[in-house]
């Protein structure tokens, strides 16, 4: 695998500068996350949170900087992260003309997963009965968010990158996201999520990073008492 390194940290990058269309979206980020941990990334709009997630997913080109993501060089991820990273962005990643169930069945075929697992995942996110068979385009924003989350649960990647996963969700939905992240971290997967809610994010996270101007400006422990708690 290209540039593959071994580390106890799932993510460990130093002074990363990333460009999007020639514009620097990350201006020398230092960021790390231990395996099996949950990290919250806070910051105002335009701080670089989404760009950080996209860079860690290998979707934004790195102009300079060093480090690794799941043992793959952050500067040259090539296809080393394919299948190992999941990104829940503002888009659902689902076909609008298909139902959540049909979207998950399609993903199951791609992943060579047991189709029955797709049904279990749909039940896990509360999209059962008619909700599971209604086309995505007809679902509410919160239900669409749940369908997107279901795709990620089915994939179970090593690194979960969630961009404002609580957006558009009601109280139950937010609790669902928190429990899914907790479950993933409990199984050894690494979760990095962005949020605009410092209090809520700190409750579920092992560490909390704050970004501004494309760099991490503050890093502190969260309140989660996982294996990485101090």
């Amino acid at each position, binding site marked *: 695998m290209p540039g593959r390194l071994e580390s106890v940290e799932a993510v460990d990058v130093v002074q990363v500068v990333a460009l999007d269309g020639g514009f620097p979206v990350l201006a020398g980020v230092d960021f790390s996350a231990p395996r099996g941990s949950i990290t919250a990334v806070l910051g105002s709009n335009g701080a670089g949170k989404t760009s950080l997630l996209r860079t860690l*997913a290998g979707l934004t080109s790195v102009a300079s900087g060093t480090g690794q993501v799941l043992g793959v060089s952050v500067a040259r991820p090539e296809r080393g*992260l394919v299948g190992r990273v999941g*990104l829940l*962005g503002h*888009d*659902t*990643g689902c*076909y609008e003309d298909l139902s959540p169930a049909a979207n998950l069945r399609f993903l199951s*075929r*791609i992943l060579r997963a047991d189709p029955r697992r797709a049904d279990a995942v749909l039940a896990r996110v509360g999209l059962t009965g008619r909700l599971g068979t209604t086309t995505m385009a007809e679902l509410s924003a919160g239900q669409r968010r749940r369908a997107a989350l279901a795709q990620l649960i089915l994939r179970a990647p090593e690194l979960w990158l969630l961009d404002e996963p609580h957006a558009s969700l009601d109280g139950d939905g937010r609790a669902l996201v928190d429990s899914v992240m907790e479950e993933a971290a409990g199984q050894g997967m690494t979760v990095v999520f962005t949020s605009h809610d410092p209090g809520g994010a700190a409750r579920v996270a092992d560490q909390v990073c704050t970004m501004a101007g494309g760099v991490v400006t503050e890093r502190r422990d969260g309140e989660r008492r996982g294996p990485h708690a101090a």
Partner: protein
Amino acid sequence: MLRDAWAVFAKDLRIEAKTRVGLWQVLPFAVIALVTFAFALGPGKSALSAAAAGMCWVGVAFSSVLVVGRSQGIEREHGVRTAQRLAGIDPAGVFLGKTGAVAVQLAVIEVVLGAGAVGLLGYHVHRLWLLLVASVLATIGLAAVGTIYGALTGAARARETLLPMLVLPIVIPVLIAGVRCWQAASVSSAPRVGEWLSVLGAFAVIYIAAGVVLYGQIEEVQ
């Protein structure tokens, strides 16, 4: 690769079966184009019969741009392409699956236009096997080229106009060979049919191979 191709093929046709964009938008467009050409040529039976093959294939080529645009559009929306790329779907499988689904939709259009040519324009079929072989090869070529260029232009803002500007000049060999084969199929014997079939076959093989090799890189660039 083939499993991913089959999954993408089935999914694209399922979406088409649900939305019926091809049935309600593309197919009527193709029929209207055929009828418009017929009106432009006038009521002379022999002129219409002689031009029937060309009118059909021009209609299919124009329709292919619409079918490909739709086929790529569903991948572009709502971050689907990024999600699938991260999930590890084989790009060559995506190319083959999408090409197959586009080809099926074009085949339906060809059947309808062919029936229209027989019913309205006085086109006669003497050698059905030639018509079928030529149609299959030409359809695969059109679908493969369209899928490659549909992915290439996917991120461009002016993709709706860019796609036909790139695709239509490239498929001219398919149009010429397809028309020649359909014309040859309407008479009991015609020379050089094998050469035109070879052109269609080579075109299909070259663009299928190019798509399998290059589609992943094209998607990454996009």
